[in-house]
């Protein structure tokens, strides 16, 4: 399982109702259904990912998140998840509001653009970073918003969103003391557990 997925697995209670936005091939949801007995649905628009979910027996709905989530009732899920996708949507701020309307709690993971290597790349080369983790050019990237660990934290404060816990890890899921002490500089992936 992808490193950030392993991390959040520990935070998730068994037997809850989960909505996984942009679930991809459903790795996390599959794991949670099998091991935590959660009930849940994934939303996805990629035909191959959808088929992979159907193959594994993961309930998956073809729905474009950018077109809204009005079809889900207020507080109808215990947890709304979004791993490594927030940066791909038109209005992350409004999407977070929607996620907190639908779910009692949310877990969001995203690539931290404040990582020292991104900074160094931009500072020294003067060009947008292309890495193993974000292997796209500026013009063809699905990631249309770049933000940092601190940016997200600040948005939560502005919106009066409670940060229940957070984690910051490198590409190998190691959460060394230096990452914990300076997550904005050292984490490659930021993980936030939030609620209203």
């Amino acid at each position, binding site marked *: 399982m992808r490193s950030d997925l392993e991390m959040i697995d520990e935070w998730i209670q068994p037997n809850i*109702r989960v909505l996984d936005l942009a679930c991809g091939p459903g790795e996390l949801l599959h794991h949670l259904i099998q091991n935590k007995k959660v009930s849940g649905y994934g939303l996805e628009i990629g035909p191959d990912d*959808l*088929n992979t*979910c*159907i193959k594994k027996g993961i*309930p*998956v709905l*073809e729905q474009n998140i950018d077109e809204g989530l009005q079809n889900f*009732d207020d507080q109808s899920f215990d947890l709304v998840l979004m791993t490594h996708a927030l940066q791909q949507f038109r209005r992350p701020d409004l999407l977070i509001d929607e996620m907190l309307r639908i779910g009692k709690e949310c877990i969001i993971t995203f690539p931290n653009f404040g990582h020292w290597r991104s900074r160094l790349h931009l500072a020294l080369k003067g060009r947008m970073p292309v890495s193993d983790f974000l292997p796209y050019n500026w013009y063809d990237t699905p990631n249309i918003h770049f933000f940092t660990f601190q940016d997200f934290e600040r948005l939560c404060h502005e919106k009066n969103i409670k940060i229940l816990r957070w984690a910051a890890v490198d590409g190998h899921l190691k959460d060394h003391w230096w990452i914990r002490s300076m997550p904005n500089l050292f984490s490659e992936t930021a993980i936030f557990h939030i609620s209203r």
Partner: protein
Amino acid sequence: MPDVIPADSVGIVTPQIAQFDTPLALSCGQTLSSYQLVYETYGTLNKNASNAILICHALSGDHHAAGYHTMSDTKPGWWDTAIGPGKAIDTNKFFVIALNNLGGCCGSTGPTSINPETGQRWEASFPIVTVEDWVESQARLADLLGIQTFAAIVGGSLGGMQVLEWSIRFPTRLKSAVIVASAPKLSTQNIAFNEVARQSIRRDPDFFDGNYLENNSVPTNGLGLARMLGHITYLSDDAMGAKFGRQMRHDSYQYNYGIEFEVESYLRYQGEAFTKRFDANTYMLMTKALDYFDPASQTNGDLSAVLSRAQCEFLLVSFTTDWRFAPERSEEIVNALVKAGKLVSYAKIEATEGHDAFLFPIPRYMAVLSTFLTRIASNVTTETL
């Protein structure tokens, strides 16, 4: 007219007839004292009778869903693209049953059958049957064939409504429900189209208030017109445009009411061909079954409340250019199932064919169907061991 039967065809099939002598109480209040259903089967039923799939047909469908009746048939069954060895509904794995619904005109008891009480054809006196009545009669056919629980029940359009009804009425009798290009009830516009179709039949002077056979007549003009209208609504604007555009019959306009554009000729042909194979009373009856279907009416319009009875898992499929049963209509079912906490997956397939897309072997559509049913088949196998 196949010279040889294709390897992925179920081959030559023979319809069978099931006779029922237990009276069937219908939604309309009347009772059918006896009736028969014509059906076909493809594949082999396993020892536990756990690998059966029921196919529910749409407005103008019948029991001949796959294969050929004779080597001189010009066309295979209506869903041959999806049913056969190695196809999405794989007859190597499943025992597939397709029937002609009650009220039909292809061998099951319907308006053209003889009413045993009068010795005359039923015609206009045949009672109106509903989706609920069909599902009830299909369950009796399942009993007769020794099938307690279906691995899947599959249907498109009006067929999808029957599948939905199955999941509510007989929750323990199906493991999975596949509902394609359907809706939880007709929209006002849909009912309106149906009414125009019915009026065009009823106002044909050859209709004789529904007793046309007795009068040695057939309302071909009305039925043809109804089919022409229906046909337009089953296709998308783009699909018709791509097929015919403004292609003309002659080099220049004729300034009369003969055929100018190819699409006119196509529609006339479709209308006329339909009158040769379909009965007008059956057509009207099927449109009424569509109009009446509304399972949420049992729970004050709350679809998710009525669907909370369901126990099977669901697959819903819609098509982007379908405006007769638009994706939003399938999504109403999906949302109600999510609200009720049921297992459901949903795919919205990019397709140019409009509502008719559900009959086409669109690769992604077939892949979704096949992936879903392959998993259902493996569950069946695991249980058998």
